[in-house]
């Protein structure tokens, strides 16, 4: 077990190194860097000269775009990253770690709530659909699940915004707080409720998008299990259909389910870039998109490394959970 973990850790380091090198190279090769973006207006109006721009680039370490130069600056980045310093974000003017820790929580909250909803809605629906395969219920649920999965998130967001925010006016359109209301500084509950009210639509979008996948996954695995020999044995024992389905069958369906769902857990910190942007919620995804547009290399690197680390962690967690739920699996 320990040997396995060490092996996976070594593998993770290699993956992270490769990913960081690739992302670094790509973001350095972006046609317009942060300085170009910031200075283009001043350059055109003549307030700045090309020499000023070059000096700025030198200062930011963006001047040398040759392969050798990129490699050199990558190594500098790597050194400081290993020592725990992800650098200073150009755009936000703060250390990258500070920006990350400030904005991931709102993203995590949205993602986590929709993750929980996705599990408590999707799994029972999938079980019921598999038990009554080819019934009206099965078809209806499957069609809606497919529709939810097939819709692009920005489209679904726009649709819900149009109906519930603009036409019906039930929910706020965008943002995280109501700008027109002034809350007393000690009205914590009201502020919280206001935020929750703003998050209803984005959470709905994320849930609708993902619940179909969970439902389908549950249904498929459940059907496979229900056709297996040991389910026939369980029935032959005289167990009621409820016990057969929810104990004998579901315990086996849980193996792939837990493995895949637990692997998603770290990813919840990664933010939902498109949904957050459409709803203008200052989550990590929204911040990252802005930073990427502006060519804020320290933040791009920091965020993407964070994502890569989360992915690696997700893989590790799902492997460990696989061992936990399936007695046949031994990690070695």
């Amino acid at each position: 077990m320990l040997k396995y973990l060490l092996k996976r850790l070594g593998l993770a380091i290699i993956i992270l190194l490769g990913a960081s090198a690739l992302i670094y190279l790509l973001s350095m090769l972006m046609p317009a860097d942060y300085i170009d973006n910031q200075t283009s207006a001043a350059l055109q109006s003549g307030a700045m000269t090309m020499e000023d721009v070059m000096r700025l680039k030198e200062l930011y370490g963006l001047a040398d775009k040759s392969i050798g130069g990129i490699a050199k600056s990558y190594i500098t980045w790597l050194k400081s990253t290993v020592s725990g310093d992800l650098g200073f974000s150009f755009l936000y003017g703060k250390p990258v770690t500070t920006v990350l820790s400030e904005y991931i929580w709102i993203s995590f909250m949205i993602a986590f709530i929709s993750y929980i909803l996705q599990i408590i809605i999707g799994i029972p629906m999938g079980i019921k659909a598999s038990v009554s395969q080819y019934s009206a219920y099965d078809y209806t649920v499957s069609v809606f699940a497919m529709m939810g999965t097939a819709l692009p998130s920005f489209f679904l967001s726009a649709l819900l915004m149009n109906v519930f925010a603009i036409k019906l006016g039930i929910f706020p359109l965008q943002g995280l707080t109501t700008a027109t209301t002034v809350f007393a500084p000690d009205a914590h509950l009201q502020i919280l409720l206001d935020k929750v009210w703003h998050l209803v639509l984005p959470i709905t979008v994320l849930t609708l998008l993902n619940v179909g996948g969970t439902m389908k996954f549950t249904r498929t695995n459940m059907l496979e299990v229900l056709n297996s020999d040991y389910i026939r044995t369980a029935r032959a024992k005289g167990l009621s259909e409820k016990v057969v389905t929810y104990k004998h069958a579901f315990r086996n369906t849980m193996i792939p389910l837990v493995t895949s769902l637990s692997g998603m857990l770290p990813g919840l910190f990664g933010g939902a870039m498109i949904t957050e942007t459409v709803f203008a919620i200052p989550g990590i995804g929204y911040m990252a998109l802005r930073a990427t547009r502006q060519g804020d290399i320290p933040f791009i690197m920091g965020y993407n490394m964070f994502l890569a680390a989360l992915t690696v962690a997700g893989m590790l967690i799902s492997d460990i959970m696989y061992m936990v739920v399936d007695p046949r699996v031994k990690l070695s």
Partner: protein
Amino acid sequence: MGLLNIFKRKKIEGIDNTMYLTLRDERRISKENNKIIKYYERMKARKNVPEEEYLTQMRDPNNVVEFENLHTYFFTDVGTVKSVNGVSFDVPQGKIVGIVGESGCGKSVTSLSLMQLVQAPTGQIVEGSIRYKANDGKCYEITKVPRDKMLKIRGKDISMIFQEPMTSLNPVFRIGEQMDEVVLLHEDGMTPESAKKRSIEMLRLVGIAMPEKIYSKYPHELSGGMRQRVMIAMALSCNPRLIIADEPTTALDVTIQAQILELLREIKEKINGSIMLITHDLGVIAEMADLVVVMYAGRIIEKGTVREIFHSPKHPYTIGLMKSKPSGKTTDDRLFSIKGQVPNPINMPDHCYFYNRCDRAMEVCLGEYPKLIQFSPTHFAACYLYDESRLSGDDLAKE
């Protein structure tokens, strides 16, 4: 013409003719199936059915189970598969009844019908009766017993051992847990401790060394033979009156096969129950069975005592089966095999199903399906060869 064939999508070859299904046929079939399936499912799901409706009388009080004219059909998308098509035989108390036949001849479906475990909703018992005498003297008409009542019979009075020990145990539960479950379910006043004691006792009974250790193991930690022993122990734990063994030795290697069969026979003596032994291995039948039922394409073509079937087989199919079994005496270098294939169950002919493979087929065989002809109080066969009233002079001359 080629264009028209687009509409004939599914080809079903029978003995006499080849059927094609058009899209319209398929739609009609699925519509009819839905109607039929709904009817039977509703019947089975009824609650609070009065006992009189499913209590009955046995024809012979010495029998544990009587099958009479049982029809179990599968309503599939391409047509009705008559898996069991008018099967009648008895399982007497304390006897081993062997059911032999090729794969797909309906032997497993017959036994699953008795357990009400036919793969629903496509599979349904449509006609006939299965009478079962319980311990308390009550006789149940299994085809009419509602689902909730059936749960009390399954696993307690009638238990089943399956073909594949490797996949018949739930991989995520420990052996002990799976065994205790049956006992706790069916026996009143059982505590987890007493259930564990019973399970360990059963494991010892089926010849497992160190039952305490096996009790807390997972199925994948045991060998195939061990797992089959566990299955047998599980089947025994509620003192069943009838054990259905559905090809219990097919997946095991030969030495283990002999051990498992020996075990089954010992156990039958101990519990004084009956065994329905389903197999396609004639050696197993000869060794174990008291009575033999030979099935072909959903029908019984011959039944009798093991002596009658092995020493004086009547039906050409049984004769072929006997010839195709390897024996030490013959010196032929090739094993005899019955030519041809089992007919497609969807497109069955109206005449004897064995006609196309029979080396003694006659003109009369193309008539209606032959009736069972009695040779002794126990020996029956369904073949025109022995029906003197139906044989024309011509056919006799040919003989």
